[in-house]
C-alpha cells in the first residue's frame, strides 16, 4: 500500500512538473528570446491561460504527501524552511506578473511584468532542480553534531548554503555545487520543454528559431547529464545499486535518454507534438530515475546515526492509505474526464482561437 501511494504521489508530482514545467520554460524563453511585442504577447498568453490549472497539481501533490507520508511532509517542509518559503514567494510573484501584465496597455508596464515573469520562472526552475538535488544528496537527519542528534531523528534544518558550497561535508547546505548542477539541468530541461510548448501552441515568429535553440540546449543538456552522472557517483557512491539489483528499474533512465536522443532529431520531426512528447519524456524519465535510484528511501541521511527516511517509516497506517485509495480512484477518473473535456474544447493554437473576448 505504501508503494501504491508512493507511485500515486510521484505521478501527481511528475504531472505538476510536466504541466507547470512548460510554463516555467515559457517564462525562460520569454526572458531571453521574445523580442517583438506580438511574440511577447502570445508567448506570455501560452503560459497565462494555463498556469493556474497547472499549479493545482502542486496543491494536490502537497495534500497527498501530507495524507500518505505525514512524517516525510513534516520533516522536509520544516527542514527546507527557507528555500520552500522563497519558492512560495516566487510562485506568488510570478502569478502576479502573468495576471497583471496585460491589464494596462502601455509598454513600460508590460516590460516590467514581462521581466518579472521571466526572472521568477527562471529562478523557480532553478530552485525546483536544487530541491531535487537535495533530496537525492540527502541531509543531516537529526542535526547530528559530534555524533549526537540535536533533534528527533527524522527532523533536520538546512541553511541555504555553507561556506564551502560542497555536498561532501558533514553539514551540506541547500545550495552547493552538486545541487546547482541539478538546478541547471532542470532549467535547461524546462527551457526546452517550454520552447516546445510555444511551438505547439502558438504561431509566434520565433517558432523556427526555437527549434534551433532546442537543438543547442539539448547538446548542453546531454553534456550536463553525463557530467552529473559522474559527480553523482562522487556524492553518493551507491547511486546505481538499485538499477543493478532490480534491473527492470532501468526503464526510467531509458525513458530519459529516449527523450534526450529524440530531441536531437527535432529538425526532422514532422509534427510539433512529437518534440513536446520527447521533452515530456525527459521530465518523466529524469524525476522517476532519481526516485527509482533511491527507492524505498525518499530522503537519505548523510550521517550514520539516524536512518534515512523511507516510504515505510514515514507513511500513515494501512487503514488511512486504503480508504484514501478508494476516493483517490474516483477522483482520478473524474479528473481524467475534465481533462478530456478541456482538451476537446481548448486544444489547438491559441492565437487562432477566438475565446469570445
Amino acid at each position, binding site marked *: 500500500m505504501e508503494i501504491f501511494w508512493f507511485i500515486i504521489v510521484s505521478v501527481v508530482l511528475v504531472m505538476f512538473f510536466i504541466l507547470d514545467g512548460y510554463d516555467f520554460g515559457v517564462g525562460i524563453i520569454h526572458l531571453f528570446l521574445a523580442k517583438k511585442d506580438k511574440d511577447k504577447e502570445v508567448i506570455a498568453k501560452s503560459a497565462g491561460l494555463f498556469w493556474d490549472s497547472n499549479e493545482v497539481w502542486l496543491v494536490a501533490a502537497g495534500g497527498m504527501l501530507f495524507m500518505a507520508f505525514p512524517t516525510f*511532509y*513534516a520533516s522536509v517542509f520544516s527542514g527546507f524552511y527557507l528555500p520552500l518559503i522563497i519558492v512560495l514567494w516566487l510562485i506568488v510573484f510570478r502569478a502576479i506578473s502573468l495576471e497583471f501584465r496585460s491589464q494596462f496597455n502601455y509598454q513600460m508596464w508590460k516590460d516590467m511584468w514581462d521581466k518579472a515573469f521571466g526572472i521568477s520562472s527562471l529562478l523557480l526552475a532553478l530552485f525546483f532542480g536544487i530541491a531535487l538535488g537535495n533530496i537525492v544528496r540527502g541531509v543531516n537527519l537529526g542535526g547530528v553534531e559530534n555524533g549526537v542528534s540535536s533533534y528527533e531523528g527524522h527532523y533536520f534544518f538546512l541553511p541555504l548554503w555553507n561556506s564551502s558550497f560542497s555536498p561532501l561535508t558533514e553539514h551540506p547546505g541547500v545550495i552547493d555545487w552538486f545541487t546547482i548542477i541539478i538546478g541547471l539541468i532542470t532549467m535547461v530541461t524546462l527551457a526546452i520543454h517550454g520552447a516546445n510548448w510555444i511551438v505547439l501552441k502558438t504561431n509566434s515568429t520565433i517558432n523556427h528559431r526555437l527549434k534551433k535553440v532546442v537543438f543547442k540546449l539539448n547538446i548542453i543538456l546531454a553534456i550536463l547529464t553525463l557530467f552529473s552522472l559522474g559527480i553523482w557517483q562522487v556524492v553518493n557512491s551507491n547511486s546505481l545499486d538499485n538499477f543493478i539489483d532490480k534491473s527492470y528499474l532501468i526503464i526510467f533512465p531509458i525513458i530519459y535518454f529516449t527523450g534526450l536522443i529524440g530531441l536531437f532529431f527535432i529538425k526532422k520531426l514532422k509534427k510539433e507534438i512529437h518534440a513536446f512528447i520527447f521533452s515530456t519524456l525527459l521530465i518523466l524519465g529524469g524525476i522517476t530515475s532519481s526516485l527509482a535510484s533511491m527507492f524505498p528511501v525518499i530522503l537519505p541521511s548523510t550521517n550514520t546515526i539516524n536512518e534515512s527516511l523511507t516510504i515505510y517509516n514515514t507513511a500513515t497506517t494501512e487503514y488511512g492509505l486504503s480508504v484514501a485509495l478508494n476516493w483517490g480512484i474516483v477522483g482520478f477518473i473524474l479528473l481524467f474526464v*475534465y481533462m478530456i473535456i478541456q482538451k476537446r474544447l481548448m486544444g489547438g493554437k491559441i492565437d487562432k482561437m477566438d475565446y469570445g473576448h
Partner: protein
Amino acid sequence: MEDIIFYDRLQFAFTITFHYIFPQLTMGLSLLIVYFKWKYLRKNIEKYNDAAKFFMKIFAINFTMGVVTGIPMEFQFGTNWAKFSELTGSIIGQTLAMEGMFSFFLESSFLALFIFGEKLMSQKLHFLTGFLVFLGSWASGWFILATNAWMQHPVGYEILENGNFVLDNFSALFSNPWLLPAFLHNQVAAMVTSSFVVASVGAFYILRNKNVEYGKLFLKTGVIFGLVSSVLLAFPTGDWNAKNVAKYQPASFAAMEGIFETEEAGAEIILIGQPNMVEKKLDNKIAVPNILSFLTYQEWGKQIPGMDQFKKEELPDNIPALYYAYHIMVGLGTIFIGVMFLAVFFLWKNKLFNFKPLLWTIMFLFPFPYIANITGWYVAELGRQPYLVYGLLKTSEGVSPTVSSGNTLFTLLGFVGLYMLLGLLFLVLVGKTIHQGPRPQSH
C-alpha cells in the same frame, strides 16, 4: 520558545486572514453567477448573461488571488507546524488531499471553460460549466470545514503509542456534529459577502448614473439575496453553532460571551462591555438578564458555567480578543439584517433606486461582511486555544522543532511585504473591472 509560537501564530493568522478575503467572495459569487445565468436561460434577456460574465471576471481575479495565497497555506502546515502535521497528517491530510482532488481540479478546469469557452459550446453547457465552478468552490469549503471541525471536535481517531493520531473511522470525519452547522454558517456568510458586494456595485452604478440598467439588476439581486442570507446567518445557522460551542467547548463559550462569574440562575447576555482581565469582570457593561440561557437552552433559568468554573489552562489564552471578535461578528450581523430589511422594504415600495441615503449606505457597507467573516473565523480559532486539536494537542506542541524564531520572523515580514503588493494590485484590478462595467465599449 515563547517567541517562536508567537511568530508562528502571527504568520498563520496574517496569511490566513489575507487568504480568506478571496474565497469568501468566490464561494458566494459563484452561486449568484449561476443564478444570473439561469435567469438568462429562462428569460433570454442579454442583461442577465452580461451580469453573469461580468461577475465571473471579478470571480476570476479573486480565484487567482485565492490560489496564490492558498498554496502557502497548505505548505505552512509543514513549514511552520511540522509537529502538528506529523501527528495529525493521517487525518487532516485526508480532507486536505480530498480538497485538491475533488474541488480544485473541478473549479480550475471549468472556470477556464466558462471564461474562455462561451462561443465553443451551447448556452446550456455554458450554464453547466458555471454550475460546476460553483460546485467546486463549495466542495472546497466543505473539505476545509471538515478539517477544521476535526480540530475543534476530534472524532474517528485513535492515538498510537508514539503519540500519532491516526484515522480509525473515515466517515466519522464527515458526520462530525461540528461540521454541518459550521459549514452552513460559513457558506451563508460567504453569500452575505458576495450579495453585499453585488449590491454595492449596483448602488455605485446607480449613484454614478452609469450602467444604470445593470445597477438596478445588481442592487435588486444583491439586497434580496443579502436579506435572505443575513437572516439565515443568525438563525438557524448562527444559533446552531453557538449551541455547539456551549456543548463541546464550554470554556470558550463562557469566554466569548464574556461571562466571568457563574450566576445562580439564568445567564445574562452581554451587549457591550470591555473585559477587565485584572479584576476579572466586564467594565461598562450593558446586559439583558436570562436571555443567554434562553437562547442557548430555551430555558430562562438554566445555569451556564462562567469562566470561574474552569482552570486557567483550559481557558483560551486571549480572552479579550475572542470576546471582541465574537461581539463584532454578532453586532455586524444584526446591522446587516436591519439594513437589508430596509432595502428590501423600499424595493418592494419601488422607492429603493431613488432613495440616496440608503444607496450610499449600501455602497459603503461592502467591507463589513468581510470583517464579520474574518472575526467569525477568529472566534473559531481563538476559541479553540490553547489547543490545536481541542482537548488533545496544545498549540505550543505543534510548531516545527527545527525552525528558529528568527527564520519565522523573516518569512513573516516577507509575506507582509509581498501581500501588501498583492493587495494593492488586486484593488486596482477589481476597480478597473468595475469601472469598465458589464459592457466595455472598447474591444
